[in-house]
C-alpha cells in the first residue's frame, strides 16, 4: 500500500473563504456569531437540497437547468458559511454539514416542508429568498470583516436568484386560473411559517451591540413583511399572503417527516463510511 499523502479532491484556484483571524472577538460574541452562521448555513443547505429535487422534472428543460443551478448556488453558500463556522469553533465543516442528527439542524420552519408541486416550490423559494435578502442586507456592514466579505459575495449571486423568482411569482400569479389558484394555496399553506427565517436567536442582542447584525430579528421580520405585502397584496392582488404569524422557533424537538427523509438522502453518502475523504 502506498503511503503517499492524498491530495484534496477540490483544489480551488482562489479560495472563496480566505484565511481570517477571529482573535479580536470575545467569547460571547463568538458564540452568538456561531449561532447565526449555523442557522444561515442550515437554511441555505436545506433549501439547496429541497430544490435539487426538481433536477430532471422541472416544467421545462431550460428551467430544470436554471433551478438546479440556483439550488447548487445555495449549497455553495452553505459551504462558505459552514467553513467560516468551522474555523470560528475549531470544528470541521463536513462534519457540521453531514454529521448531525435530524433534530439538530436549525433551518427555519419554512424549510421543513417537502418541495410538493411547482407552485409550492416557487412560493416557498420566493418567501425564503426575499427574507434571506433582508437578512443579508443587515450583515453587509458587519464589524466582523470576514463575514461582511462573504455576505457581499453571496449577495451578488442572490441578485440573480431574486430576479428569477420574481419572474416566476408573477408568471404564476398572472398566468391564468390554475397557476394562480395553486400559488395562492401554497402561499396560504406557508403563511404560518413565513416569519420563521427571522426566529429569534439567543445571542442576537450581542450581535447587534457588536455591530455585526444591523437590527434585531423582529425588526428585520417587519421590514420583510412590509416588502412582501407590498408585492403580494399591492401588486398581485392576493387577499392575505405573508401575514404576521407567531414566529416558529428554529429549535424543534421533532423535525417533519419530510425533513427526515431529506436528511436520509443528503447524508446517505457521508454515512457510508465515517471520516472517509472523497
Amino acid at each position, binding site marked *: 500500500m502506498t503511503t503517499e499523502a492524498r491530495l484534496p479532491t477540490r483544489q480551488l484556484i482562489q479560495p472563496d473563504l480566505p484565511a481570517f483571524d477571529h482573535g479580536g472577538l470575545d467569547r460571547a460574541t463568538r458564540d452568538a456569531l456561531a449561532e447565526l452562521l449555523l442557522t444561515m448555513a442550515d437554511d441555505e443547505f436545506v433549501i439547496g437540497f429541497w430544490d435539487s429535487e426538481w433536477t430532471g*422534472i*422541472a*416544467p*421545462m*428543460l*431550460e*428551467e430544470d*437547468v*436554471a433551478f438546479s*443551478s440556483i439550488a447548487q448556488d445555495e449549497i455553495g453558500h452553505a459551504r462558505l458559511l459552514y467553513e467560516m463556522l468551522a474555523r470560528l469553533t475549531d470544528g470541521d465543516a463536513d462534519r457540521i454539514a453531514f454529521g448531525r442528527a435530524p433534530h439538530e439542524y436549525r433551518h427555519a420552519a419554512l424549510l421543513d*416542508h*417537502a*418541495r*410538493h*408541486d*411547482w*407552485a*409550492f416550490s416557487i412560493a416557498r423559494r420566493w418567501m425564503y429568498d426575499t427574507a434571506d435578502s433582508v437578512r443579508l442586507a443587515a450583515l453587509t456592514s458587519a464589524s466582523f470583516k470576514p463575514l461582511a466579505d462573504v455576505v457581499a459575495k453571496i449577495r451578488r449571486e442572490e441578485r*440573480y436568484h431574486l*430576479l*428569477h423568482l420574481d*419572474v416566476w411569482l408573477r*408568471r*404564476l400569479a*398572472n*398566468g*391564468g*386560473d*390554475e*397557476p394562480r389558484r*395553486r400559488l395562492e*394555496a401554497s402561499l396560504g*399553506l*406557508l403563511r404560518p411559517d413565513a416569519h420563521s427565517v427571522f426566529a429569534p436567536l439567543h445571542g442576537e442582542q450581542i450581535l447587534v451591540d457588536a455591530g455585526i447584525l444591523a437590527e434585531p430579528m423582529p425588526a428585520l421580520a417587519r421590514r420583510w413583511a412590509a416588502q412582501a405585502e407590498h408585492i403580494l397584496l399591492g401588486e398581485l392582488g392576493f387577499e392575505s399572503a405573508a401575514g404576521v404569524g407567531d414566529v416558529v422557533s428554529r429549535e424543534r424537538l421533532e423535525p*417533519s*417527516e*419530510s425533513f427526515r427523509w431529506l436528511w436520509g438522502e443528503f447524508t446517505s453518502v457521508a454515512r457510508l463510511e465515517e471520516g472517509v475523504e472523497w
Partner: protein
Amino acid sequence: MTPEQLSASEGRRDDAGLLGEGADPGVWEVFRQEKDGEAMRHAGNVRAPDRDLAMHYAREFYSRRQESVRLWVVNRAEITDLSDPDLLQPPLDRSFKKPGGYVMRDKLEIAKERAKAQGQAETKAADR
C-alpha cells in the same frame, strides 16, 4: 390540506400547464461575446415563454461558468430570414466580381512600367 398531504411525486407532467395558459415556449437565439472588443458570435438557442426567462436561461446555458462578458438574446421570430437562392445565389456567372477572376500580375507590371516612364518624363520636363 397540509403541505405534507400534497403529492410529493408531482413533476414535469403535472405542471406542464403552469408556464401560464397560452404561453408559447418560443425559441430565442443567443449570441455571446467572449472578451470585450471581440465579435458577437452565435452560441445556440434556448426555449422560453418570455423575454425575462429567455435572458435567465441564456445566462444559465451560455455564461454560468463565466465564459461570456455579454449576451444578446433575440426572439427567433424577430429575425429577418433571407435564404432565397434567386437573391443569394444568382444563376449567371459572377466570377468577374471576384478578384481571383483576373490575372493581375502582368497588368500590374505594365502599370508599374508606365508609371515609372511617366515619372521620368515629368522629372526631365521640370529640369528644363
